[in-house]
């Protein structure tokens, strides 16, 4: 039982970490970033580079955040900016961008599976169960990301401008807010968070050019059901991630892998606003 509770919490945390970046972009720009998976991969390899140049492991996610953020901002300026009027084409263009990025990563780092020494290893005894310490740490990281993001949105000037752009873009423009800049930064932050997620999950997974892909569908569905709101995303991760853990434990992991997609699809059909406005 203790194990199951921890599985649920840590699964939700991983889902939250890997979908927060997508949510931010969707929430502000109403665009789905199909290059999300590629940015997660970028983050994983950024962590590898950080390791190779001798940065302490704690700084790897920060380094990934910066690399992903810069690449994301460039992508916004070169590609995404032209497609705000064509949101479905933005899906395709970001998908193509993801293909290109994956191929470039493959060309520079090879196709093989790489391996990063974990910054934290071992187990810890929680709720009467021996449990992977790193997974527990990720729960804390997820909470930290949620708090940091909430603080960014509510306590900073940038967050205020961003909320203003979400609520009423033309009014914000009329007040002198450069909404193009807000979008650029948002896309950068979203991609940066995806990359940071990539760096954060590498100690659990392997490092290869396709490492981000498994997280893509889960992130899409979670973001769709949460309708762009961060608290709703946290709730969706907990409920659907919890369901996934329960199905995986008691029925089988293969069905467990489908839980999120299927439940989210049905939930949206029955209740189109999803977890937003709960």
């Amino acid at each position: 039982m203790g194990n199951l509770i921890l599985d649920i919490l840590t699964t939700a945390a991983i889902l939250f970490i890997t979908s927060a970046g997508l949510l931010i972009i969707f929430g502000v720009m109403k665009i789905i970033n199909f290059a999300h998976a590629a940015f997660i991969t970028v983050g994983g390899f950024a962590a590898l580079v950080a390791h190779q140049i001798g940065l302490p492991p704690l700084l790897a996610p920060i380094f990934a955040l910066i690399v992903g953020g810069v690449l994301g901002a460039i992508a916004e300026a070169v590609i995404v900016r032209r497609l705000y009027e064509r949101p479905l084409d933005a899906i395709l263009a970001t998908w193509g961008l993801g293909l290109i990025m994956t191929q470039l990563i493959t060309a520079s780092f090879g196709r093989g599976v790489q391996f990063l020494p974990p910054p934290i290893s071992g187990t810890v005894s929680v709720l009467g169960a021996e449990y992977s310490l790193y997974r527990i740490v990720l729960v804390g990281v997820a909470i930290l990301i949620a708090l940091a993001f909430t603080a960014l949105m509510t306590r900073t000037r940038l967050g205020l401008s961003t909320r203003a752009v979400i609520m009423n873009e033309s009014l914000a423009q009329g007040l002198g807010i450069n909404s193009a800049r807000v979008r650029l930064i948002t896309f950068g932050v979203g991609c940066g968070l995806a990359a940071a997620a990539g760096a954060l999950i590498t100690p659990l997974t392997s490092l290869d050019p396709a490492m981000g892909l498994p997280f893509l569908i889960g992130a899409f569905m979670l973001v769709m059901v949460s309708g762009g709101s961060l608290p709703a995303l946290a709730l969706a991760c907990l409920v659907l991630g919890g369901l996934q853990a329960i199905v995986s434990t008691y029925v089988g992991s293969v069905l467990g892998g489908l839980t999120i997609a299927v439940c989210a699809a049905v939930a949206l059909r029955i209740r189109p606003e999803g977890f937003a406005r709960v």
Partner: protein
Amino acid sequence: MSELAKEHPRAAVGDTGLWSSRVARRVAVLVVFGTLVLVAPWFLDAYTVNILVRAFFIAIVAVTVDILWGYSGYLTFGQAAFFGLGAYTLAITFSQLGFGPGQALLALGAAMVLAALLGALVGWLSFYPGASPFYATIISLVLPIVLVQLIYSGGNFTGASSGVVGYFSFPLMTETWFRVAGISMLAVAVLAHIAVSSDAGRLLRALRDNEMRCAYLGINTAAIRITLLTICAAIAALAGAGYAAFGGIAAPENAGFVFGTQLVVMVALGGRGMLTGAIVGALSIELASAYLSGILPYAWELLVGIAFVTVIVLMPSGLFGLLRAMAQRWTPWLFAPAPAVRLGDSAPKARESAVDAVVLEAQGVARSFGALTVLSDVNLTARRGELVSLVGPNGAGKTTLMKCLADGREASAGDIRIAGTPIKGMVPHRIVGLGLGRKFQAASVFETMSVADCLRIARSGRDKPSVLRSCAALNLPAAARSVVEASGLDTRFDEDARNLSHGLKQALELAMVLALEPDLVLLDEPTAGLTRSERNVFATILTRLVEQDRLCVLIVEHDLDFVRQISSRIVVLHQGKLVLDGTVEEVVNSPLVAEIYSGHQVTDDPAPTPTNTPEARA
């Protein structure tokens, strides 16, 4: 009325003239391509023939992707799943039951039926009134992923990751396969072409251009999308079955989402919204990857990715779109003009006997967004032969009231009946079926379609559109026809709606609404941005609609001169409440109205207080 009918006799569908020359041209093109497919195996090497057989089957699915995405605007990665379902159905049937003519029929039939059922289910999940297009696209992405997972879990029955292999299939030589697959592809292309250029096929482009307008023309958009997906699923499954019958294997990647994205890439590169573009895209990518991916296994995907992004961002109509635009510029004679539109009268709708019946009854209508109340306790009744103007300052709730009347899901409280039927919870297309027509504030037409086609779409609820033919005649009810003629739209039937002036767009939208033969018409600021003469034309038309055709018209309008000129009754809204409902004279001379418009707070008591005259007017 009858004189008009004599001048424009109702034309029979599909008669001679231009139509047949267009057909001849197309038949000629078809014969050329058909012959090419038949003789090509003698000239091509075995390798190319093999590659092309598979490419033909893939091109068939690409055509369905193009119809769904390019024509109807539904971006889908899910056609791969139906293709895979077809491939697996055939492969499993042949490996479980052996090969034979009966099994072959069973396999093809089962492939289509299963795919159609799955398509209908996915359609039901993806399309409902108010569904986001993102959501439908994401579902289309989930579908192949779930299906592949099921295939993986299917053990020996589905061959798990290794696919189903080792069954006997049609004993055809590769050259014969080439001809079968090539002719199948041409057949699908021809059928698709006939369907998308038919009267019913026009609906798809209308859905893509403006789904909301479709709903308010009484078109059940969800049903059309689900039907279309069901058909496209069955066709994709047939292609998949052919692919598996030729290749001797059904593999998970035939159903996977990577293949789904490749199909979209093919259509995007070739040119969406053009069947030829989809086919050219599919064939050329398949051929190029057969020759190049072997030579450049590492760079091929990178090249495709770069080409894809470039095309999406810079030339959304694809390579073939670019070619066609060039050809249209330099060799315009290649493009036959569309047949001339003949205006005709539609058979008048049978009207119930009751003269000037009540068509709108609203009791206690309210609308609030969270804590914010925009509309409260509005009572309004209107009957045929009345023109009711809705006036009030900005933010008074006029447009919100219009929305509540036209969409049963809008009002937070109250009872609204259109032609006696309560509309609570009803979606717009059903309310339109009750006899309501709604014209939006900003002209809402089908931008990429011709004027005639916009009007035909509006008629599709009454004249069941044919899937096979495209009718040159345009039959309109008298009211719509008078708008078309008075505005001069009848001289510009072939013009795309996006090229019309603002005034003509407004007229077109009104004509589209009137083509529905509604009993109740809602008009939201129809004269905004019109010139004086355009307004006068409009006023004449409205007066005629009300007095002659006995329509009930509810209009939101700012210009009181205009309101005075046309209204039989005026209703004043202020801060979400109905404060006055009376004749033109009563309202125009009401001090309350002056008060509202000159900017004083109105007390909660809606009764005008004559003593409270604003100082400014003294």
